């Protein structure tokens, strides 16, 4: 009994504390706010139109291109970029490499928010979103669908990430008992999370397996799921490098000088991982290329475009990473990370939009409204991220 009263009083205190923390901190007129606030407002208006007059009123989607930028960019790419969380938790909690411990919290937070916002962007794209509960509460389980699987994994993975992150929340809210309890769950959540990640990262690729006649043969392969999984490894690592670099500039005062230094070491380690996984990925692509006997396809626009993606945005950044690790040059690593991220964007968009119905007369390209809404999703995520890191002990390592 004592326990419950303690918990309820804890809870009351937490609510009071939460309300007080909701208030903004710091300056209002930063450049980021000046850009993001209008975008978010505009995006809200566009979404209002979208929900009252249908998807056609703001997007360029058509009967030929049922999936556009919102799925191709927000969901497919957003989730690939969020892959860092499962890699880092694997390295830290399963393999116990202490070196990366200091970035676990921020990476998990990033992953969690990315899933909430980018996978959540799926809802914007649904024609009848109020039926989204159907495959979840079970009045109509479409077990046979890859999307069913992906949707469930998103949901479960968000839960796992939330559990992984909850010790930080508990620590912030000074709920010591809760923190102890949820910390004990961490390893379970991590293992579950990694498994789910493997499945839905590849599942996103498997979505396109049935679109066989629609995707250019250079991009279609029965191994799309594996390619998606492998590429999510270096996508996630590059994202940590990229995003970490920015946070270390913006939140300099939150991050101690010491971890500033260890971050260099972390970047070097991750660059090594990225170089190796990209090398494997490149040869995987080559193997598929040979296996499918695709050499006749290489000598036209799409063939060159394919080479640009595979050589320019996989092989070259791979060598850049390797070279930079050797010479301990973090600038080159950052550059390579950015190129890799662009490469991932290219690859995912190629499969979902660009090389999808590559010979169609009326090609799809996103409308400005679609881009604004995408930016809105990204900016809102950054707002929430900023709100959390300035309040919770995300960057510090102490337990």
């Amino acid at each position, binding site marked *: 009994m004592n326990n419950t009263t303690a918990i309820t009083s804890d809870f009351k205190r937490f609510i009071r504390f939460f309300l007080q923390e909701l208030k903004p901190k710091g300056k209002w007129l930063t450049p980021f706010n000046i850009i993001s606030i209008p975008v978010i407002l505009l995006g809200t208006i566009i979404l209002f139109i979208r929900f009252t007059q249908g998807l056609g009123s703001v997007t360029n989607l058509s009967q030929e291109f049922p999936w556009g930028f919102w799925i191709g960019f927000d969901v497919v790419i957003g989730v690939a970029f969020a892959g860092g969380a499962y890699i880092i938790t694997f390295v830290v909690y399963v393999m116990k490499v202490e070196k990366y411990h200091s970035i676990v919290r921020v990476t998990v937070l990033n992953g969690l928010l990315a899933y909430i916002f980018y996978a959540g962007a799926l809802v914007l794209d649904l024609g009848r979103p109020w039926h989204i509960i159907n495959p979840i509460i079970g009045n109509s389980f479409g077990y046979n669908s890859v999307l069913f699987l992906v949707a469930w994994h998103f949901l479960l993975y968000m839960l796992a990430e939330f559990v992984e992150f909850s010790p930080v929340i508990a620590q912030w809210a000074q709920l010591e008992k809760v923190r102890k309890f949820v910390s004990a769950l961490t390893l379970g959540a991590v293992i579950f999370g990694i498994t789910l990640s493997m499945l839905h990262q590849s599942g996103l690729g498997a979505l396109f397996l049935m679109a066989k006649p629609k995707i250019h043969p250079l991009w279609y392969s029965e191994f799309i799921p594996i390619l998606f999984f492998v590429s999510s490894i270096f996508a996630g690592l590059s994202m940590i490098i990229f995003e970490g670099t920015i946070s270390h500039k913006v939140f300099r005062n939150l991050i101690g000088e010491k971890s500033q230094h260890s971050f260099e070491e972390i970047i070097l380690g991750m660059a090594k991982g990225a*170089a190796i996984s990209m090398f494997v990925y490149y*040869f995987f692509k080559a*193997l598929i290329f040979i296996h499918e006997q695709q050499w006749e396809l290489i000598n036209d626009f799409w063939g060159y475009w394919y080479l640009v993606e595979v050589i320019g945005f996989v092989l070259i950044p791979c060598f850049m990473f390797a070279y930079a690790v050797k010479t301990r040059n973090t600038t080159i690593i950052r550059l390579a990370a950015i190129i890799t991220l662009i490469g991932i964007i290219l690859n995912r968009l190629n499969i979902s939009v660009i090389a999808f119905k590559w010979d169609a007369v009326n090609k799809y390209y996103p409308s400005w409204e679609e881009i604004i809404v995408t930016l809105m999703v990204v900016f809102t995520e950054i707002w929430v991220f900023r709100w959390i890191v300035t309040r919770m002990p995300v960057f510090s390592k102490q337990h």
Partner: protein
Amino acid sequence: MEFYYYVNIFETKGLEYVLLICFLVLFILLVRYLSTPEKKE
């Protein structure tokens, strides 16, 4: 109008194994390159 003819679906296997061997060799080189301690500037 369906024609039936023999398709050897393993035609490229030889090349694939060559690729694999190249990969392994290069992979070892890459890993060695990455893990040898860098020279002091």
